[in-house]
């Protein structure tokens, strides 16, 4: 049980700003929120009258829908903006877009952007609470929180848990947020990927880095596969996807090296036959669909907790 009852910040910009008791509070609140999703009427009036803008400057299906569902289950009024067909396509700057939206007095803005640090920028110029839904190669805090929630649900703990994260380490904000969260909570994290996709300095974050998947998943309680992000690579880093699968793809036979009750995770969308074999993705180890379901509960928890912080802000 968490020892605190509030987050320190009114924004959620990254895992880097959260301490372990804040992470515990979010996970504990998410447990209660998950129960709401199991009711016949999956809606509570908690954020009635609150306005939330979902600002997605980068393609997203599951994160955007997950946030929207979380907002609706808490009875907030939500509106979405994607870049195609918006003023952004007409050349408006991020600051001007933010100021325009701010004039409509939203209580929170959920933002995804291709540039690292864009939510930090927004937090400086907006009165609304900002939630980072993924910024460039920097952070994706709600993904790491839902991953942690899923691990706790299956393994009852994070401390001491052996977690192997395999794939494109260089371009992954999911990796970064997960490493920050898991090391902070005392998990034993190993990361593995092709040498061309290992960012410099990763080992300094308290992670054991390896270029052998067999070494990384040896005895692992959790194997988290990352998506090969073709769209960020332009063919420079990998000879071919077939070779990638041969060297780094997760197959049932490779998984035999892991702990007998290993769980397999993937933030989605999956490239079957590239980073993960269909037999594994659909197999008994897979908790990939649990991650999706838990995403809604974790985002409800974040929205609820930040709504409290916001009141403090308006008072001061």
């Amino acid at each position: 049980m968490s020892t605190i009852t509030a987050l320190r910040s009114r924004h959620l910009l990254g895992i880097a700003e959260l301490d372990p008791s804040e992470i515990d509070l979010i996970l504990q609140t998410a447990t209660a929120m998950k129960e709401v999703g199991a009711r016949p009427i999956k809606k509570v009036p908690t954020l009635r009258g609150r306005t939330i803008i979902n600002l997605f400057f980068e393609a997203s299906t599951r994160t955007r829908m997950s946030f929207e569902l979380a907002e609706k289950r808490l009875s907030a009024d939500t509106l979405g903006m994607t870049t195609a067909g918006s003023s952004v396509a007409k050349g408006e700057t991020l600051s001007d877009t933010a100021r325009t939206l701010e004039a409509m007095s939203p209580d929170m803005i959920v933002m995804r952007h291709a540039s690292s640090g864009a939510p930090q920028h927004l937090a400086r110029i907006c009165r609304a609470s900002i939630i980072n839904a993924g910024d460039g190669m920097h952070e994706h805090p709600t993904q790491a929180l839902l991953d942690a929630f899923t691990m706790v649900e299956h393994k009852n703990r994070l401390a001491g848990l052996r977690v192997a994260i395999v794939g494109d380490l260089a371009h992954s904000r999911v990796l970064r947020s997960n490493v920050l969260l898991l090391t902070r909570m005392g998990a034993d994290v190993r990361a593995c990927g092709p040498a061309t996709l290992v960012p410099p300095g990763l080992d300094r974050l308290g992670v054991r880095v390896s270029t052998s998947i067999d070494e990384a998943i040896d005895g692992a309680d959790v194997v988290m596969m990352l998506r090969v992000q073709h769209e960020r690579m332009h063919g420079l880093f990998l000879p071919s996807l077939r070779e990638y699968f041969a060297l780094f793809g997760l197959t049932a036979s490779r998984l035999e090296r892991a702990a007998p009750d290993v769980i397999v995770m993937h933030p989605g969308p999956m490239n079957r036959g590239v980073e993960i074999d269909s037999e594994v993705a659909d197999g008994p180890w897979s908790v990939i669909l649990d991650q999706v379901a838990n995403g809604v509960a974790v985002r409800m928890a974040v929205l609820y907790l930040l709504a409290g912080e916001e009141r403090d802000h308006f008072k001061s």
Partner: protein
Amino acid sequence: MARTLTRIAHEILERNRGVEDLALVGIRARGVPLAERLAAHLHEFSGVTVPTGALDITLYRDDLMHHAVGPQPVIRSTEISFSTDDRLILLVDDVLFTGRTIRAALDALIDFGRPRAIQLVALIDRGHRELPIRADYVGRNIPTSRQQSVQVRLREIDGKDEVEVEG
């Protein structure tokens, strides 16, 4: 407190002529052990096991977004593992005061289904209602001033049974 709960259990049986479609729902935190104790009494007197659930009303509170300062209340889980449809639900709380908690609990309960009826059990009624709500079963009426606080302590949570009026 034990005698009071025994008496309330008898009243429940008398008023409802049986326990076939009854269910108890305790409001967190202290309504939950009270509901469990009532269920034990009802079992003892009638031989029937009455299903018991726990309700957290935090997400339904009307004051959540109105406090000028302060953190959000911590949410505990709601556990109602039976269908509430067509049942007589006995809602159980420790102290009945403004009635706002009960208003929130009624909203929450109605989202779980369509009970045949809902009755309210309060261990203590201290007055000062702000809403048109009254209890069907009252352990004890305690006159208080609005500024006082009434603390119910239960052995399941606090290690001992007692009611204290402070201030």
